[in-house]
Protein backbone atom coordinates (compact mmCIF):
# COMPACT_ATOMS: atom_id res chain seq x y z
CA UNK A 1 0.00 0.00 0.00
CA UNK A 2 1.48 3.35 -0.97
CA UNK A 3 1.49 5.71 1.99
CA UNK A 4 1.35 8.84 -0.14
CA UNK A 5 -1.84 9.53 -2.02
CA UNK A 6 -2.51 11.55 -5.17
CA UNK A 7 0.99 11.08 -6.47
CA UNK A 8 1.99 10.54 -10.05
CA UNK A 9 5.28 9.37 -11.39
CA UNK A 10 7.72 12.18 -12.19
CA UNK A 11 10.87 10.38 -13.20
CA UNK A 12 12.31 13.37 -15.04
CA UNK A 13 12.66 15.23 -11.75
CA UNK A 14 14.64 12.39 -10.21
CA UNK A 15 18.15 13.51 -11.05
CA UNK A 16 20.29 14.62 -9.43
CA UNK A 17 19.36 12.50 -6.43
CA UNK A 18 20.83 12.43 -2.94
CA UNK A 19 23.50 9.71 -2.97
CA UNK A 20 26.17 10.29 -0.30
CA UNK A 21 29.81 9.95 -1.30
CA UNK A 22 31.62 8.68 1.77
CA UNK A 23 35.17 9.81 2.51
CA UNK A 24 35.40 10.20 6.28
CA UNK A 25 32.75 11.29 8.74
CA UNK A 26 32.77 11.16 12.53
CA UNK A 27 29.64 11.57 14.64
CA UNK A 28 28.91 11.70 18.33
CA UNK A 29 26.37 8.92 18.65
CA UNK A 30 23.79 8.70 21.43
CA UNK A 31 21.59 5.60 21.55
CA UNK A 32 18.47 5.27 23.70
CA UNK A 33 16.25 2.25 23.84
CA UNK A 34 14.41 -0.23 25.91
CA UNK A 35 13.44 -3.89 25.96
CA UNK A 36 10.59 -5.07 28.20
CA UNK A 37 11.18 -3.14 31.42
CA UNK A 38 14.86 -2.44 30.83
CA UNK A 39 16.04 0.84 29.42
CA UNK A 40 19.52 1.48 28.11
CA UNK A 41 21.64 4.39 26.97
CA UNK A 42 24.86 4.17 24.99
CA UNK A 43 27.13 6.93 23.82
CA UNK A 44 30.27 7.04 21.76
CA UNK A 45 31.83 7.97 18.45
CA UNK A 46 30.70 6.64 15.08
CA UNK A 47 33.27 6.70 12.29
CA UNK A 48 32.15 6.13 8.69
CA UNK A 49 35.01 5.89 6.25
CA UNK A 50 35.89 4.64 2.79
CA UNK A 51 39.16 2.74 2.62
CA UNK A 52 41.55 2.32 -0.30
CA UNK A 53 39.82 -0.85 -1.50
CA UNK A 54 36.57 1.16 -1.93
CA UNK A 55 34.99 -0.53 1.07
CA UNK A 56 32.82 1.55 3.41
CA UNK A 57 33.34 0.96 7.13
CA UNK A 58 31.16 2.00 10.05
CA UNK A 59 32.74 1.72 13.50
CA UNK A 60 30.91 2.62 16.70
CA UNK A 61 33.10 2.83 19.81
CA UNK A 62 32.67 4.22 23.29
CA UNK A 63 34.53 7.24 24.58
CA UNK A 64 37.26 5.08 26.10
CA UNK A 65 37.92 3.44 22.72
CA UNK A 66 36.13 0.11 23.16
CA UNK A 67 34.51 -0.92 19.86
CA UNK A 68 30.82 -1.71 20.14
CA UNK A 69 30.52 -2.84 16.52
CA UNK A 70 32.31 -2.63 13.18
CA UNK A 71 30.41 -3.09 9.90
CA UNK A 72 31.73 -2.94 6.35
CA UNK A 73 30.36 -2.91 2.82
CA UNK A 74 32.67 -4.17 0.11
CA UNK A 75 32.45 -3.40 -3.61
CA UNK A 76 30.56 -5.76 -5.89
CA UNK A 77 32.44 -8.92 -6.83
CA UNK A 78 35.11 -8.26 -4.20
CA UNK A 79 35.40 -10.13 -0.95
CA UNK A 80 38.73 -9.60 0.81
CA UNK A 81 40.59 -12.79 1.83
CA UNK A 82 40.54 -11.87 5.52
CA UNK A 83 36.74 -11.88 5.40
CA UNK A 84 36.50 -15.46 4.13
CA UNK A 85 34.17 -17.43 6.31
CA UNK A 86 32.22 -14.34 7.39
CA UNK A 87 28.54 -14.07 6.66
CA UNK A 88 28.06 -12.21 3.42
CA UNK A 89 24.84 -10.57 2.34
CA UNK A 90 23.54 -9.43 -1.01
CA UNK A 91 24.78 -5.91 -0.62
CA UNK A 92 28.27 -7.14 0.38
CA UNK A 93 27.68 -6.28 4.01
CA UNK A 94 30.09 -7.83 6.51
CA UNK A 95 29.99 -7.86 10.31
CA UNK A 96 33.65 -7.35 11.25
CA UNK A 97 33.20 -7.32 15.04
CA UNK A 98 30.57 -6.76 17.70
CA UNK A 99 30.57 -6.92 21.49
CA UNK A 100 28.65 -9.87 22.96
CA UNK A 101 25.92 -7.62 24.40
CA UNK A 102 24.97 -6.38 20.91
CA UNK A 103 25.54 -9.66 19.08
CA UNK A 104 21.86 -10.43 18.52
CA UNK A 105 20.45 -11.14 15.03
CA UNK A 106 17.62 -8.62 15.47
CA UNK A 107 20.02 -5.88 16.53
CA UNK A 108 22.42 -6.55 13.65
CA UNK A 109 19.54 -6.64 11.14
CA UNK A 110 18.17 -3.36 12.41
CA UNK A 111 21.50 -1.53 12.31
CA UNK A 112 22.28 -3.02 8.89
CA UNK A 113 19.01 -1.59 7.52
CA UNK A 114 19.60 1.82 9.08
CA UNK A 115 23.02 2.17 7.49
CA UNK A 116 21.82 0.75 4.18
CA UNK A 117 19.18 3.50 3.99
CA UNK A 118 21.52 6.27 5.10
CA UNK A 119 24.49 5.28 2.95
CA UNK A 120 22.51 4.05 -0.09
CA UNK A 121 25.21 1.56 -0.93
CA UNK A 122 23.29 0.07 -3.82
CA UNK A 123 22.43 3.41 -5.35
CA UNK A 124 25.76 4.70 -6.52
CA UNK A 125 24.66 4.59 -10.15
CA UNK A 126 21.51 6.62 -9.55
CA UNK A 127 22.92 9.81 -11.01
CA UNK A 128 24.53 8.13 -14.00
CA UNK A 129 22.94 7.29 -17.31
CA UNK A 130 23.45 3.57 -16.79
CA UNK A 131 20.49 1.80 -15.20
CA UNK A 132 20.75 1.80 -11.41
CA UNK A 133 20.67 -1.45 -9.47
CA UNK A 134 17.57 -0.40 -7.52
CA UNK A 135 13.98 0.08 -8.52
CA UNK A 136 12.83 3.66 -7.97
CA UNK A 137 10.08 6.10 -8.78
CA UNK A 138 9.86 9.77 -7.98
CA UNK A 139 6.75 11.71 -7.11
CA UNK A 140 5.93 15.35 -6.44
CA UNK A 141 3.81 15.66 -3.30
CA UNK A 142 2.69 18.87 -1.63
CA UNK A 143 5.66 20.94 -2.79
CA UNK A 144 8.14 18.20 -1.92
CA UNK A 145 9.70 15.34 -3.85
CA UNK A 146 9.43 11.75 -2.76
CA UNK A 147 11.43 8.88 -4.21
CA UNK A 148 10.27 5.37 -3.55
CA UNK A 149 12.94 2.67 -3.53
CA UNK A 150 13.72 -0.85 -2.51
CA UNK A 151 16.94 -0.85 -0.50
CA UNK A 152 18.63 -4.26 -0.14
CA UNK A 153 18.08 -5.44 3.43
CA UNK A 154 14.88 -3.42 3.94
CA UNK A 155 11.71 -5.48 3.51
CA UNK A 156 9.31 -2.59 2.97
CA UNK A 157 9.62 0.42 0.68
CA UNK A 158 11.92 3.29 1.50
CA UNK A 159 10.88 6.88 0.77
CA UNK A 160 13.43 9.63 0.36
CA UNK A 161 11.76 13.02 0.87
CA UNK A 162 12.85 16.60 0.51
CA UNK A 163 12.30 19.86 -1.33
CA UNK A 164 14.14 18.27 -4.22
CA UNK A 165 15.45 14.77 -4.84
CA UNK A 166 18.97 16.08 -4.32
CA UNK A 167 18.37 17.71 -0.95
CA UNK A 168 16.64 15.00 1.03
CA UNK A 169 15.75 15.72 4.66
CA UNK A 170 13.79 12.60 5.59
CA UNK A 171 14.19 8.90 4.87
CA UNK A 172 11.32 6.68 5.87
CA UNK A 173 10.88 2.92 5.80
CA UNK A 174 7.27 1.83 5.56
CA UNK A 175 5.76 -1.50 6.48
CA UNK A 176 2.35 -2.55 5.23
CA UNK A 177 0.45 0.16 7.06
CA UNK A 178 2.75 2.46 8.95
CA UNK A 179 6.27 3.80 9.10
CA UNK A 180 8.81 1.46 10.65
CA UNK A 181 11.84 3.79 10.71
CA UNK A 182 12.26 7.53 10.16
CA UNK A 183 15.62 9.15 9.60
CA UNK A 184 15.51 12.94 9.68
CA UNK A 185 18.43 15.28 9.25
CA UNK A 186 19.46 18.89 9.03
CA UNK A 187 19.81 20.53 5.59
CA UNK A 188 22.49 18.81 3.52
CA UNK A 189 25.57 20.72 2.39
CA UNK A 190 25.30 19.01 -0.99
CA UNK A 191 23.56 16.11 -2.69
CA UNK A 192 26.66 13.96 -2.22
CA UNK A 193 27.32 14.79 1.44
CA UNK A 194 26.37 12.77 4.48
CA UNK A 195 24.26 14.87 6.87
CA UNK A 196 26.07 16.74 9.63
CA UNK A 197 23.55 15.34 12.09
CA UNK A 198 20.65 12.90 11.99
CA UNK A 199 18.07 11.22 14.19
CA UNK A 200 17.04 7.64 13.49
CA UNK A 201 13.73 6.71 15.13
CA UNK A 202 12.42 3.17 15.11
CA UNK A 203 8.66 3.22 15.53
CA UNK A 204 8.13 -0.50 16.17
CA UNK A 205 11.32 -1.11 18.17
CA UNK A 206 12.03 1.09 21.16
CA UNK A 207 15.23 2.58 19.80
CA UNK A 208 16.43 6.06 18.85
CA UNK A 209 19.88 6.89 17.52
CA UNK A 210 21.12 10.46 17.46
CA UNK A 211 24.11 11.32 15.30
CA UNK A 212 25.53 14.67 16.35
CA UNK A 213 28.49 16.62 14.95
CA UNK A 214 31.86 15.50 16.30
CA UNK A 215 34.14 18.46 16.69
CA UNK A 216 37.45 16.74 16.03
CA UNK A 217 39.93 18.95 14.23
CA UNK A 218 43.10 16.86 14.35
CA UNK A 219 44.24 15.04 11.23
CA UNK A 220 43.11 11.45 11.35
CA UNK A 221 45.10 9.38 8.93
CA UNK A 222 47.99 7.22 10.07
Amino acid at each position, binding site marked *: MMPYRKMSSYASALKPHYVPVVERKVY*RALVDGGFLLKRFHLSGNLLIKQ*TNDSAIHAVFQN*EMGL*TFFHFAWFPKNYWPPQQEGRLRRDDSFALISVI*PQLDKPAVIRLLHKDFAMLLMRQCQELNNYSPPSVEYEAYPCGGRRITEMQIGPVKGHVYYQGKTCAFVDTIQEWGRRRPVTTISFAPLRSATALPDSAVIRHHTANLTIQLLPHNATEPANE
Partner: protein
Amino acid sequence: MRSVVVLLFPVLFVVSVSAQPKGFKPVANVSAIQQGLQQSTATVQSIQSDFTQTKHLSLLADKITSRGKFYYRKEDKVRIEYTSPFQYLVVMNSGQMMVKDEQKTSKVNTRNSKTMQSVNRIMLDCMRGTVFSNPDFKVAAYESGANYLLSLTPANEAVKKLFKQIDVYLTRASFDVDRLTMTEQGGDFTDMDFSRTQHNIALNDALFKVK
Protein backbone atom coordinates in the same frame (compact mmCIF):
# COMPACT_ATOMS: atom_id res chain seq x y z
CA MET B 1 50.10 2.98 37.85
CA ARG B 2 47.20 3.95 40.02
CA SER B 3 45.89 6.37 37.44
CA VAL B 4 46.22 3.78 34.72
CA VAL B 5 44.48 1.08 36.63
CA VAL B 6 41.41 3.15 37.38
CA LEU B 7 41.04 3.83 33.70
CA LEU B 8 40.51 0.14 33.15
CA PHE B 9 37.01 0.26 34.61
CA PRO B 10 35.04 1.82 31.83
CA VAL B 11 37.17 0.11 29.22
CA LEU B 12 36.57 -3.34 30.62
CA PHE B 13 39.06 -6.07 30.22
CA VAL B 14 41.34 -8.12 28.14
CA VAL B 15 44.92 -8.76 27.95
CA SER B 16 47.01 -11.51 26.49
CA VAL B 17 50.58 -12.50 26.89
CA SER B 18 52.64 -10.84 24.21
CA ALA B 19 56.06 -11.41 22.79
CA GLN B 20 58.85 -9.30 24.26
CA PRO B 21 57.99 -5.70 23.47
CA LYS B 22 60.33 -3.77 21.27
CA GLY B 23 62.92 -1.82 23.23
CA PHE B 24 62.23 -3.72 26.45
CA LYS B 25 63.75 -6.76 28.10
CA PRO B 26 62.30 -8.99 30.81
CA VAL B 27 62.85 -7.71 34.32
CA ALA B 28 65.42 -9.71 36.20
CA ASN B 29 64.19 -8.74 39.63
CA VAL B 30 60.38 -8.46 39.67
CA SER B 31 60.28 -8.09 43.44
CA ALA B 32 62.20 -4.82 43.13
CA ILE B 33 59.35 -3.43 41.01
CA GLN B 34 56.78 -4.69 43.47
CA GLN B 35 58.61 -3.02 46.33
CA GLY B 36 58.99 0.20 44.36
CA LEU B 37 55.27 0.23 43.60
CA GLN B 38 54.33 -0.36 47.21
CA GLN B 39 56.65 2.36 48.47
CA SER B 40 55.37 4.79 45.87
CA THR B 41 51.77 3.92 46.66
CA ALA B 42 52.31 4.57 50.32
CA THR B 43 53.33 8.21 49.82
CA VAL B 44 50.79 9.27 47.16
CA GLN B 45 47.42 10.43 48.47
CA SER B 46 46.15 11.98 45.25
CA ILE B 47 47.02 12.34 41.56
CA GLN B 48 46.03 14.93 39.00
CA SER B 49 47.12 14.79 35.36
CA ASP B 50 46.20 15.62 31.79
CA PHE B 51 45.72 12.85 29.28
CA THR B 52 45.57 12.41 25.51
CA GLN B 53 43.75 9.36 24.26
CA THR B 54 44.27 7.99 20.75
CA LYS B 55 42.23 5.12 19.37
CA HIS B 56 44.03 3.37 16.50
CA LEU B 57 41.82 1.56 13.99
CA SER B 58 44.15 -0.78 12.15
CA LEU B 59 41.81 -1.87 9.34
CA LEU B 60 40.91 1.71 8.52
CA ALA B 61 44.40 3.17 8.99
CA ASP B 62 42.70 5.84 11.07
CA LYS B 63 42.74 7.26 14.57
CA ILE B 64 40.46 9.26 16.82
CA THR B 65 41.98 11.54 19.43
CA SER B 66 40.47 13.04 22.56
CA ARG B 67 41.81 14.89 25.61
CA GLY B 68 40.90 15.37 29.20
CA LYS B 69 41.89 15.42 32.86
CA PHE B 70 42.39 12.59 35.31
CA TYR B 71 42.01 12.71 39.10
CA TYR B 72 42.59 10.10 41.76
CA ARG B 73 42.30 10.22 45.54
CA LYS B 74 43.05 7.45 47.98
CA GLU B 75 41.64 4.88 48.45
CA ASP B 76 39.06 4.39 45.74
CA LYS B 77 38.06 7.69 44.11
CA VAL B 78 38.63 8.37 40.43
CA ARG B 79 37.44 11.08 38.02
CA ILE B 80 38.08 10.86 34.26
CA GLU B 81 36.92 14.00 32.51
CA TYR B 82 36.99 14.23 28.70
CA THR B 83 37.08 17.86 27.60
CA SER B 84 37.84 17.72 23.88
CA PRO B 85 36.37 17.20 21.32
CA PHE B 86 33.39 16.05 23.39
CA GLN B 87 32.27 16.33 26.99
CA TYR B 88 32.18 13.04 28.86
CA LEU B 89 32.66 12.23 32.52
CA VAL B 90 33.29 9.05 34.50
CA VAL B 91 33.40 9.14 38.30
CA MET B 92 34.12 6.11 40.46
CA ASN B 93 33.72 6.17 44.20
CA SER B 94 33.43 3.29 46.67
CA GLY B 95 32.21 0.73 44.14
CA GLN B 96 29.72 3.12 42.52
CA MET B 97 30.23 4.53 39.04
CA MET B 98 28.63 7.54 37.39
CA VAL B 99 28.80 8.23 33.64
CA LYS B 100 27.68 11.56 32.21
CA ASP B 101 27.44 12.44 28.52
CA GLU B 102 25.80 15.38 26.72
CA GLN B 103 22.31 14.22 27.58
CA LYS B 104 22.24 11.71 30.37
CA THR B 105 23.76 10.77 33.70
CA SER B 106 23.85 7.07 34.56
CA LYS B 107 24.79 5.33 37.80
CA VAL B 108 26.22 1.81 37.92
CA ASN B 109 26.92 -0.35 40.95
CA THR B 110 30.13 -2.15 40.04
CA ARG B 111 29.43 -4.78 42.67
CA ASN B 112 26.64 -6.15 40.45
CA SER B 113 29.02 -7.13 37.68
CA LYS B 114 31.77 -9.71 37.96
CA THR B 115 33.61 -8.02 35.14
CA MET B 116 33.47 -4.66 36.84
CA GLN B 117 34.57 -6.31 40.08
CA SER B 118 37.54 -7.77 38.28
CA VAL B 119 38.61 -4.40 37.02
CA ASN B 120 37.88 -2.83 40.40
CA ARG B 121 40.12 -5.43 41.98
CA ILE B 122 43.06 -4.70 39.74
CA MET B 123 42.66 -1.01 40.35
CA LEU B 124 42.82 -1.50 44.09
CA ASP B 125 45.74 -3.86 43.72
CA CYS B 126 47.63 -1.19 41.85
CA MET B 127 46.74 1.37 44.51
CA ARG B 128 48.16 -0.94 47.13
CA GLY B 129 51.03 -2.12 44.96
CA THR B 130 49.76 -5.73 44.94
CA VAL B 131 48.91 -6.06 41.23
CA PHE B 132 51.18 -9.03 40.80
CA SER B 133 49.00 -11.12 43.08
CA ASN B 134 45.72 -10.42 41.21
CA PRO B 135 44.33 -13.81 40.07
CA ASP B 136 42.30 -12.27 37.20
CA PHE B 137 45.37 -11.20 35.25
CA LYS B 138 48.76 -12.58 34.39
CA VAL B 139 51.44 -9.93 34.69
CA ALA B 140 54.68 -9.91 32.76
CA ALA B 141 57.26 -7.24 33.64
CA TYR B 142 59.76 -5.65 31.27
CA GLU B 143 62.19 -2.78 31.53
CA SER B 144 64.00 -0.27 29.38
CA GLY B 145 66.35 2.55 30.26
CA ALA B 146 63.58 4.93 31.24
CA ASN B 147 60.51 2.79 31.85
CA TYR B 148 58.99 -0.31 33.29
CA LEU B 149 56.31 -2.07 31.29
CA LEU B 150 53.71 -4.30 32.90
CA SER B 151 51.84 -6.42 30.35
CA LEU B 152 48.53 -7.62 31.73
CA THR B 153 46.89 -10.63 30.14
CA PRO B 154 43.39 -11.51 31.28
CA ALA B 155 42.88 -14.86 32.92
CA ASN B 156 39.18 -14.02 33.34
CA GLU B 157 36.97 -15.25 30.44
CA ALA B 158 34.67 -12.21 30.55
CA VAL B 159 37.58 -9.81 30.26
CA LYS B 160 39.22 -11.89 27.55
CA LYS B 161 36.26 -11.32 25.25
CA LEU B 162 36.88 -7.60 25.15
CA PHE B 163 40.61 -7.17 25.50
CA LYS B 164 43.67 -8.98 24.33
CA GLN B 165 46.19 -7.11 26.43
CA ILE B 166 46.69 -4.07 28.63
CA ASP B 167 50.16 -2.52 28.79
CA VAL B 168 51.11 -0.14 31.56
CA TYR B 169 54.21 2.00 31.07
CA LEU B 170 55.73 3.40 34.27
CA THR B 171 58.60 5.83 34.69
CA ARG B 172 61.45 4.16 36.51
CA ALA B 173 62.12 7.18 38.67
CA SER B 174 58.70 7.72 40.20
CA PHE B 175 56.51 4.80 39.06
CA ASP B 176 54.16 7.33 37.51
CA VAL B 177 52.14 6.04 34.57
CA ASP B 178 53.36 7.45 31.27
CA ARG B 179 51.07 5.48 29.02
CA LEU B 180 48.32 2.90 29.10
CA THR B 181 47.70 0.81 25.98
CA MET B 182 44.58 -1.33 25.69
CA THR B 183 44.54 -3.75 22.76
CA GLU B 184 41.29 -5.33 21.58
CA GLN B 185 40.98 -8.84 20.21
CA GLY B 186 40.62 -7.54 16.66
CA GLY B 187 43.91 -5.66 16.79
CA ASP B 188 42.64 -2.13 17.34
CA PHE B 189 44.24 -0.43 20.33
CA THR B 190 43.87 2.67 22.48
CA ASP B 191 46.77 4.69 23.87
CA MET B 192 46.30 6.95 26.85
CA ASP B 193 49.27 9.25 27.37
CA PHE B 194 49.57 11.12 30.65
CA SER B 195 51.28 14.45 31.14
CA ARG B 196 51.68 17.19 33.74
CA THR B 197 51.19 14.66 36.53
CA GLN B 198 51.00 16.17 40.02
CA HIS B 199 50.92 14.29 43.31
CA ASN B 200 49.21 15.08 46.59
CA ILE B 201 47.19 18.05 45.33
CA ALA B 202 44.19 18.85 47.51
CA LEU B 203 41.22 17.50 45.53
CA ASN B 204 37.72 18.63 46.45
CA ASP B 205 35.13 16.01 47.47
CA ALA B 206 32.80 17.44 44.84
CA LEU B 207 35.05 16.06 42.10
CA PHE B 208 34.19 12.50 43.13
CA LYS B 209 30.54 12.85 43.94
CA VAL B 210 28.40 10.11 42.37
CA LYS B 211 25.00 11.80 41.91
